[in-house]
């Protein structure tokens, strides 16, 4: 398992999340609420693929 937690802030651009995933070679990032750091969800490569497919419509 990975011990480091890669996290992403809610409201951040999907492209920036993709950049984080690439830089850290991970397939998921946790999305947290900026003021509280409360976890809101997990963004995976599946959602990124969804964004790429939507971008072309």
């Amino acid at each position, binding site marked *: 398992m990975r011990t480091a937690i890669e996290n992403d802030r809610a409201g951040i*651009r999907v492209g920036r999340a993709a*950049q984080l995933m690439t830089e850290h070679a991970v397939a998921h990032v946790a999305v947290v609420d900026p003021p509280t750091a409360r976890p809101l969800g997990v963004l995976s*490569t599946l959602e*990124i*693929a*969804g*964004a*790429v*497919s939507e*971008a072309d419509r």
Partner: protein
Amino acid sequence: MKVADVMTRRLVTVPADATLADAAPILVRNRISGAPVVDSTGSVVGVVSEADILRHPGGVETPVAEAMSAPARTIEPGRRIAEAARIMVEARINRLPVVEDGELVGIVARADLVRALAVEEIEAAIETRALERERLHQSNGDHAALEANRLAIVRLQQQLSRALIAEHTA
């Protein structure tokens, strides 16, 4: 952007007559989570993933052909990456063999789409920064700096794109 721009050209395949015990080390050795399964003519007949191996109720001597996803969804290298993304999302799959004239020429995975989006993001950030500097040089009337800035940005974008894409497609 086309599938050919982001796909991995280094091909790792699993023979159709292999067993799960044969396939697992191929994935582990190459640090990949799935691979196209090819017959004796090199045609793609399916895709086998770590999940297929782990989920299959049979033993390790089970033929790959019984555990793989088949028929394989494939895509041509000249298609747009958005189309590859749509197929992966709809079929909830992680990778697509890239086939041209019946021949396997690469594989495109969700990680490749993430990388493509990351490159776009970085390029957009560079462009924004370049525009800011351009406005500054324009307001100062510094034409030499303006031109140097433009050239530096173009070179940086080219280097970045080449490095990020070539790293994975070599």
